[in-house]
């Protein structure tokens, strides 16, 4: 045994050279103006944005680029301005948004009925899970050709596809949120004698609000994408049959339609202007509305930290 004993390595004693005077730098120092400015998040992000715009402008001006393929930023800006002021881009935005809102409201209503039914009975719960499992993976836009057959070229077909894109994610998330409500909270509700709808509104909905909100957000994201795609397909359908636009004629189409039409007419700056409008609407809805709801509910209630 003693053979295997580990011999500790003993370091020899030594004495260091004399240590010189330490050079102490600034222990505390105010940041320079430059550093302080570049510490502001908004400033940095804004300068990234400006750099991108300048790069775009320079690339499209100096590079040998066909104006029709890739317009300059300034041309796009001018197009956006003139579209807003003279060509009623706001009408197109409103056309898209009103369809979206209609579809969203009806879709959330239907999802609510399905979920209430799903909470009450085991059969309802089974029906809901089977339907969502089947239909959630189906992109709503794939139903557009059938919707066009059933409802014709028009708002009804678009609203039908929108409904489909909203109902399943909202129902799925709300239902799984309800399933995850802790037994303690359920028992509190039953203790107060709550049953049926009051039980859902007073216990299940507040407790499952984070998942409900997630469902609403996913539903909105899918609906917005579906709407733009549906309007593009409509544009294609009309160009295909070279028929009249009917109810969608004149300035009646939405944003997707504007993008498609301007591309067909080689008005590329206007295509970019349409894209800007789509981005703006998205940012406003996402950050203005959903962010606010989140701040006022789940963040205030301490259910979500970040």
């Amino acid at each position, binding site marked *: 045994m003693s053979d295997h004993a580990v011999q500790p390595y003993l370091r020899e004693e030594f004495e260091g050279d004399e240590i010189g005077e330490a050079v102490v730098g600034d222990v505390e120092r105010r940041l320079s103006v430059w550093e302080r400015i570049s510490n502001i998040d908004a400033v940095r*992000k804004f300068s990234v944005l400006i750099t991108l715009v300048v790069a775009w402008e320079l690339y499209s001006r100096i590079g040998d680029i066909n104006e029709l393929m890739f317009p300059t930023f300034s041309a796009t800006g001018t197009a956006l301005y003139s579209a807003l002021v003279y060509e009623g881009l706001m009408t197109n935005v409103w056309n898209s948004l009103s369809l979206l809102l209609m579809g969203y409201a009806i879709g959330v209503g239907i999802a609510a009925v399905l979920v209430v039914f799903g909470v009450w009975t085991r059969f309802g719960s089974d029906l809901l899970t089977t339907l969502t499992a089947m239909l959630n*993976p189906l992109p709503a836009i794939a139903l557009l*050709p059938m919707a066009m057959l059933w409802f014709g070229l028009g708002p009804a077909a678009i609203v039908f596809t929108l409904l489909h894109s909203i109902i399943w994610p909202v129902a799925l998330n709300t239902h799984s949120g309800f399933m995850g409500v802790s037994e303690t909270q359920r028992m509190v509700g039953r203790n107060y004698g709550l049953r049926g709808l009051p039980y859902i509104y007073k216990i299940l909905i507040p407790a499952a609000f984070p998942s409900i909100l997630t469902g609403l957000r996913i539903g909105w*994201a899918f609906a917005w*994408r579906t709407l733009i795609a549906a309007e*593009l397909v409509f544009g*294609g359908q009309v160009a295909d049959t070279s028929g009249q636009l009917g109810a969608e004629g004149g300035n009646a189409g939405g944003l997707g339609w504007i993008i498609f039409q301007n591309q067909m007419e080689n008005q590329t700056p206007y295509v970019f202007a349409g*894209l800007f409008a789509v981005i703006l609407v998205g940012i406003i809805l996402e950050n203005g509305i959903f962010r606010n709801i989140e701040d006022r509910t789940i963040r205030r209630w301490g259910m979500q930290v970040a």
Partner: protein
Amino acid sequence: MTDTTTDIYIRPEFEVSKLETATNVDVERRLSLIERISNINAVRKFTILLGLVAIWEIYTRIGDVEPLLFPTFSDSAVVLWETLLSGLMLEKVWVSLYVLVLGYIAGVVLAAAFLVFAVMSRIGSDFLSTMTAMFQPLPAISLLPLAMLWFGLGVPSLVFVTIHSVLWAVALSTHTGFMQVSETLRMVGRNYGLRGIPYVFMILVPAAFASILTGLKVGWAFAWRTLIGAELVFGAASGEGGLGWMIYEKGDNLDTPYVFAALFAVIVIGLIVENLIFRNVEISTVQKWGMQR
């Protein structure tokens, strides 16, 4: 002090009248066969599925429904079987999946490049968050008209929009995941002397894997929807393509059983990717590691 003492109500003593013997009830009883069968989840759901199919079949047969507008279930199923046998369906599925996989991989690789850049420098992080804030709310499909202008009608345009739909969703979710990795884990990594790419792959990626997976799932959902939508638009602009194009073309020609068969195929692919692929990745990573129940 004694004035303030409250009188306590004292319940008078009482004696209960004689209890009767309890009538004999089943304390324990085997469930009947029907109860046991209906307690099996799969059986109930399968019954519902059968019920829905039966309703569809009966509605389209008995109701005065134009078969061109709404085919019976049996017609759709027969067409699905025939197209599967003749290989037409598999060909269409292959065309769609090929574009999807190409776009998905390119999108994820691009997102990874952006993220490595973002982790290593503050300017990269600012760049990434500005770009995702700009492009995340933009439906990728709205870039299709431009893509058609730049790349012409064909696979490159489809891949371009698919990349777009994957890239920002994955980048956003992964970036937030990286931001939330705890300081302790980061310090462990730095303690081992990890920097740059090894730091990202050995510390940040495993720690933020739950968000990365969410991002990949959202990216897949957007990509699949975008691809089908893009193929529909292509159909309108007379190109050719996979499942989306088949849906569009057959819908246009009033071959509605084919449309429904294609819709079935779309659903099946969605189910396979979500429940087989992502579910298994989840089970063998975040669930095994105890990050998600």
